[in-house]
């Protein structure tokens, strides 16, 4: 277990370094280089030269990377000249909002998808499995923004149950309008459920086909014992990994949803930065989200290792606890 942890953390560090290189690379990939990207297209050549000198951009690339990386590590994610704010400040304002939207949705999605997937697997190829499978299948195949706007059309415009626009303002202002959060959360949740329940159904079906299930049946175990005492745990531990792996997927869904509902989160920030070519902000978002994903999948792997005795014990060289 300890060896596994060390190995896995070392991997995560390597991935983080690569993420930072990618973001740094993207900044340099821009036409005109980072100075133009940061100062905007109207900067004069002398402005650019002064900026380059001030930020060490006239030095060789590795030195620039090192300069940039140490800055990032000390919390300096750059400065947005368009918004006249540090990127860190902009992100600090937005991150809790996106984390809230994504977090609530994922929790709800898991709470629904697990029983639904389990039910589907048990009722495999019966009429109700077909119905649920069809619904999730179609939902899975529908663009997330359309799901959101259909919900708006029905629940906001026609039935006037929930507001069509997400709450604005500070994080606490958002929390004080739970009603307005319903549709954004519902959108992300539905899209996520569609992906998850499909996975969970497959996962449970895979487990039900295992030899140990037949063995348990031969010992007189009924459907309930097999499902809850044997299959569930084995089928759900990969779900933990799934959660880690699908963080980018969930964040993509969140980004689209923020755009649909004009929800002031990280996604909307990234989108607006992209349209305004405010690259320091856009790349700041890329970096932060990349780091969050790496951390998320690391946590997921550790949780998986805790759940699966095969990983928990073998690498620790050990017998019983």
């Amino acid at each position, binding site marked *: 277990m300890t060896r596994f942890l060390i190995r896995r953390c070392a991997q995560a560090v390597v991935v983080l370094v690569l993420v930072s290189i990618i973001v740094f690379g993207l900044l340099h990939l821009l036409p005109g280089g980072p100075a133009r990207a940061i100062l905007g297209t109207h900067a004069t050549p002398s402005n650019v030269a002064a900026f380059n000198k001030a930020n060490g951009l006239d030095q060789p690339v590795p030195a620039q990377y090192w300069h940039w990386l140490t800055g990032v590590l000390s919390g300096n994610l750059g400065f947005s000249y368009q918004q006249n704010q540090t990127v860190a400040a902009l992100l600090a304002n937005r991150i809790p909002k996106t984390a809230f939207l994504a977090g609530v949705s994922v929790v709800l999605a898991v709470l629904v998808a697990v029983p639904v997937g389990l039910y589907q697997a048990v009722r495999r190829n019966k009429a109700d499995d077909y119905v649920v499978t069809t619904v999730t299948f179609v939902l899975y195949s529908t663009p997330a923004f359309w799901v959101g706007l259909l919900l708006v059309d029905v629940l906001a415009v026609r039935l006037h149950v929930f507001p069509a626009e997400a709450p604005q303002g500070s994080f606490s202002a958002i929390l004080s309008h739970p009603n307005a959060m319903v549709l954004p959360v519902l959108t992300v949740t539905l899209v996520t459920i569609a992906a998850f329940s499909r996975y969970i159904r497959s996962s449970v079906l895979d487990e039900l086909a*295992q*030899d*140990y299930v*037949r*063995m*348990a*049946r*031969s*010992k*007189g*175990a*009924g459907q309930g*014992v097999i499902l809850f*005492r*044997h299959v569930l*745990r*084995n089928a759900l*531990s990969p779900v933990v990994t799934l959660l880690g792996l699908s963080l980018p997927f969930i964040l993509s869904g969140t980004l689209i949803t923020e755009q649909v509902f004009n929800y002031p989160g990280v996604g909307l920030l990234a989108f607006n930065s992209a349209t305004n070519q405010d690259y320091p902000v856009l790349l700041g978002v890329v970096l932060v989200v990349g780091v969050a994903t790496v951390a998320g999948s690391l946590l997921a792997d550790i949780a998986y290792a805790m*759940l*699966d*005795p*095969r990983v928990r*014990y*073998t690498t620790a060289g050990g*017998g*019983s*606890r």
Partner: protein
Amino acid sequence: MLEVAGLRVDIRLRRGAVHAVQDVSLRVAAGETIGIVGESGCGKSTLGLALAGLLPAPAVARGSIRLGGRELVGLSESELRAVRGAEVGVVFQDPMTSLNPTQRIGAQVGEALRLQRGASKQAARDAAADMLDLVGLPQPREQLDRFPHELSGGMRQRVVIASALICEPRLLIADEPTTALDVTTQAQILDLFGRLRQELGMATLLITHDMGVVAGHTDRVFVMYAGREAETGSTTSVFETPEHRYTGALLGSILRMETAHLAPLATIPGRPPDLTLELAGCPFAPRCPAATDRCRRDFPAVTADGGHQWRCHHPLTEPAPSSQAREASS
């Protein structure tokens, strides 16, 4: 103890039914070990599942299976559940996959006792430790809290056997229990079956494709081909005077010390027939060197000599039909 009469198992698929077991009858007395032998796909595993009440949904059993006087065919799922584990224990082929990877050994061995006898956790644990001791696991108490992956294949198979026998069932069905193990471990496990039978007195059904496994470890042999009985009898008589030509071919495919230098290891040419078709005649005829028109036309009736019986028109103890007779139709 176990009486099977006219058992048929059809597996219904979209492309028609597979007649996996056809008209099989056999009896096993308490404390007796019978070997069910045949190539893969001959229906021997399906027979085992039928006897354990474990047939998968599209399979339907007809005929009669009486265990200790009680009819199993036609029982509901919940009635069958009470039989499984309590009256019949099953050991499957692969000990690496037969155990739940995330459950401790103790819980898995004691599971049947808890389910069938309502034993308390502690009682099941104690019984499991005793059972692990009986099947020859060193330090049984300490094994209870281990996970399957911490044990070797042979040890895991002992755990599987222990969990199948914890309720002391009347019948143990072992489906290729040693196929996935190395040769030394195979011998140990087979000896273990012999010892357990003496101590617990259950009837054992040893399903295998390997005549060598049957030889030293069974009282009687039941040779199956294409879902049907080919030959039954005491192990000694079947090995000494095999009658069915299929049994002869199976015996020819195991290496014998005294003949190994004389003849190369024989293999049986061809493949077993498609079990979705209704067969006329002897199912082995297409692969049988001695097949005649009669073999292709009529399914052979049982010929019996005491406890030894076979279904073959041209048994090995009679002279082979002339080549003229064999080629008549083709």
